């Protein structure tokens, strides 16, 4: 059964415990269809754990919700078919060529050989990587790898794509171009769920949430957050929220 609504993600009371440690503590939020949702938080705040649950990689200890209309507790396999995922750890096989990487993931998502060939051709043109088609993915510059990995995560036209710190380690210009790709995906109707440590990227999101200690401390559009925290930019918002949580810890 698929619940179709206006939200790509709906989460209520999501909790994940590892022994005595509560990584994700009773969080609830929605991600609207077609929006770019920034998922921020300090290291160890529980972002990755929450995201793994949403992708169907791990099961919540308690709580309920849907991703792309499928229940996170019971329909994980369907979720996987309808989402794209790109992680900070490289998702490309370095010992396969650019073309072979595209072919592998196309095949995995059930595309036929001919569809894969068309997709490959279109993708290589779009990425301006025609000349690199037979190069090993491991030999590409980092920025190119990231663009290719993103395109591969989008190869089956998913309704929702998860990007886990997609732009780590590259220069601002390369990051800006990567965000152009994210905007294009968003304009064509794909919902984007992105984690990042760059606060200028947070400004590009439609809405952001900030996690501290397993809880969502703030959620709203960058403008609203800046206004309510009386901050000039997202960087200040982030430091105010995370700094406050740090002080509470020390008490």
């Amino acid at each position, binding site marked *: 059964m698929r619940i179709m609504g206006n939200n790509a993600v709906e989460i209520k009371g999501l909790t994940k415990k590892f022994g005595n440690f509560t990584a994700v503590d009773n969080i609830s939020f929605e991600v609207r269809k077609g929006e770019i949702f920034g998922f921020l938080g300090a290291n160890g705040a529980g972002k990755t754990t929450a995201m793994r649950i949403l992708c169907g990689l791990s099961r919540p200890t308690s709580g309920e919700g849907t991703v792309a209309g499928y229940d996170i507790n019971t329909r994980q396999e369907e979720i*996987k078919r309808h*989402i794209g*995922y790109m992680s900070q*750890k490289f998702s490309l*096989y370095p010992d*396969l060529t650019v073309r072979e990487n595209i072919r*592998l993931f196309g*095949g*995995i998502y059930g595309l036929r050989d001919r569809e894969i060939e068309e997709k490959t051709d279109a993708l290589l043109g779009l990425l301006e990587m025609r000349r690199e088609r037979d190069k090993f993915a491991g030999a590409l510059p980092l920025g190119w790898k990231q663009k290719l990995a993103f395109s591969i995560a989008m190869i089956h036209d998913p309704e929702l794509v998860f990007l886990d710190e997609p732009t780590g380690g590259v220069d601002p210009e390369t990051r800006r171009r990567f965000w152009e790709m994210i905007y294009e995906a968003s304009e064509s109707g794909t919902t984007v769920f992105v984690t990042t440590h760059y606060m200028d990227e947070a400004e590009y999101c439609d809405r952001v949430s900030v996690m501290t200690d397993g809880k969502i401390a703030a959620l709203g559009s960058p403008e609203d957050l800046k206004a309510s925290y009386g901050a000039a930019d997202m960087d200040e918002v982030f430091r105010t929220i995370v700094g406050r949580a740090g002080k509470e810890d020390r008490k």
Partner: protein
Amino acid sequence: MWKYLLEKEFKQFFRDPGLPRMALAFPVLMMLVFPFAVSMEIRNINLAVVDSDRSEESVRLLEKCTSSGYFRLVSLCGSPEEAMRLMDGNKADAIVTISSGFGTETALGTGFPVGIKVNTVNGTRGSIAAQYLQNCVMMYLQDRSQHDGLPAVSQTVDISEKYYFNSLLDYKLFMIPALIVMGITMITAFLPSLNIVSEKESGTIEQMNVTPVSKSAFIICKMIPYWVIAFFVLTACLLIAWAVFGYVCRGNVLWLYLYTFLDIVVMAALGLLISNYSNNAQQAMFVIWFFAVIFILMSGIFTPVASMPDWARAITCLNPMRYYADAMRAVYLKGSTPADIWYDAAGLAAIGSVMVGWAIASYRKSL
């Protein structure tokens, strides 16, 4: 989906800088180098002789010893003390002392004044040297009674030995099935587990886990290339053994493949288990090393299981390599059929079902 995954695995296998070469080098090394290196045959035993008789008979006895090819006469000593000094100096492994009156006493049948001393610092070498020397003496006595028509010195000494299945006690022939066993185990258990762990390390396994690829399909596709290689190695080894040494499998070759298949199932489960409990290649290597040593030493490949103490024999019952090695030797050397060695199949199946169950359970949990 399977097509694309298999394509990936085979491409990665053949692109690896080491793996394809290893798959080729393995059978060649195993069949052309190791049989000579692991030979337990003892040759070139240094022999010192104290011949106080110096009769025709004593010379005949010594000739018997030296012509066997196992002994190298290092010195004819004048006294037992001199010979002992040679042994102390590690120049002689064995001493044969022939007392004066040997010729006459053997002729009369009143006695056989020959002494044998063997250096048994290396127990195996020593006891085999003693055995060989006794055999030489025996042969001398037999010759003597046949050729000369003389009555045998002592009718009580009448040992006739007959070796079955490997009549020349050829150690190479004995080791070839066992070497295949070790090679197949390495290829089917340890290499795939390293491969899975390396995908864990690089993070690509996580990417696979968020796709609709089922976990079992992913793992099976990972293992298939190694299974293909395992059967290739088995075939290559059998061909090399035939082409180079002229050895052929006495039994139906099909049974070799059947037992290899059983072993592969057990080993695949073991490989998966190791990769489930290891987060990086280094950890996996330690575990592999641990298992490899226990498997090989407790398998009966080098030392017979039957001569182990009871508790050690009990441990070997848990070792899949013991059953596989036993089956391979039985089929290859004796021509056994599964009806004869059903217990090996049963052992592999029992261990296999436990391991497969455990591997699947822990694999599910590890995600």
